[in-house]
């Protein structure tokens, strides 16, 4: 067990544990903090892969920008006061995720399954070659071949590839354009409202608050409401 193996196992457990916490907790702020922990773990995985540039970029972009955006959004939409309930399709989602995980393990991982199509009643009609065969466990790295080391100048090579006409200049320019459009769009969406819209929003908020106060009053005194009071409250 080399040091890197131990480190890898520890960091992977941290990442997956934090991700599980993110998707199952009902407290949105805790979820955001655990997401930050997951991003740190992923930066650690990049360091193990000997790609320092992306580890630092991950910390700068995901933790320094996206996580702060998420926390701001959580606070601005009052996610702190409410808890996040589960969806109506939570069970189906879990089953789907499990099935997709199994398929991905077949394709990417070491899982090997022997499939005998002749035993399946309907599918065997369509299967051409129905002899039992093995699926999965593809060796993505060819055995008995050394893994080439990362060249020392990989950062400047990467930079040069991004501006090389024969390589990745076009996607680079498209991404730059996309980021420009996103900047303009986000500013527009979050712009200051005109007075008419502001008045409309204020009315909506006042109505909502009145409804909330009403509901709280009814919840705290459930048994003592005569018919007349309910009718008069509904009138307002």
């Amino acid at each position, binding site marked *: 067990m080399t040091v890197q193996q131990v480190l890898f196992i520890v960091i992977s457990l941290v990442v997956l544990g934090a991700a599980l916490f993110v998707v199952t907790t009902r407290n949105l702020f805790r979820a955001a903090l655990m997401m930050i922990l997951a991003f740190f773990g992923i930066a650690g995985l990049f360091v193990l892969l*000997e790609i320092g540039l*992306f580890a630092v970029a*991950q910390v700068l972009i995901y933790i320094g920008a996206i996580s702060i955006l998420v926390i701001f*959004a959580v606070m601005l939409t009052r996610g702190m006061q409410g808890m996040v309930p589960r969806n109506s399709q939570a069970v189906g989602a879990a089953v789907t995720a499990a099935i997709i995980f199994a398929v991905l393990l077949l394709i990417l991982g070491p899982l090997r399954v022997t499939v005998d199509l002749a035993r399946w009643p309907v599918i065997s009609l369509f299967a051409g070659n129905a002899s039992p065969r093995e699926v999965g466990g593809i060796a993505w790295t060819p055995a008995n071949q050394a893994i080439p080391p990362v060249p020392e100048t990989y950062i400047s090579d990467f930079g040069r590839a991004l501006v090389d006409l024969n390589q990745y200049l076009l996607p680079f320019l498209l991404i730059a354009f996309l980021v420009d459009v996103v900047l303009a769009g986000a500013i527009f969406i979050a712009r200051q409202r005109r007075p008419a819209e502001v008045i409309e929003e204020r009315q909506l908020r006042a109505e909502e608050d009145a409804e909330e106060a009403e509901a709280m009053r009814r919840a705290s005194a459930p048994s003592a409401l005569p018919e007349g009071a309910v009718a008069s409250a509904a009138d307002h």
Partner: protein
Amino acid sequence: MQNVLNGIPLWWYLVVSSALFCIGLYGTLARKNAIALLMGVELMLNAANINLLAFWRYLAPDTAGGLAFAAFVLVIAAAEAAVGLALVISVYRTTRSIDPEALDQMKL
């Protein structure tokens, strides 16, 4: 079995990224809050990044294609998070709810 880098074979990274992807998928499909949904999407994008960079490192570290692809995924994830959260805040201002199931009409 396969080749190892400091004792870590490639499929370890792939398993971790698959697991992270599926956790993110569950988080996106099973939550009632638009922001929690976006957090699941970010996890999925990170899983894709791990996958890309692991393959780049093990199979072709002297080219720049994997790095470029991963960089683009990073930038697009950031852009999408920005726009998505701006939209969520804007919708919250008018309808006071961020339940994606409640937004089923084209008119606010």
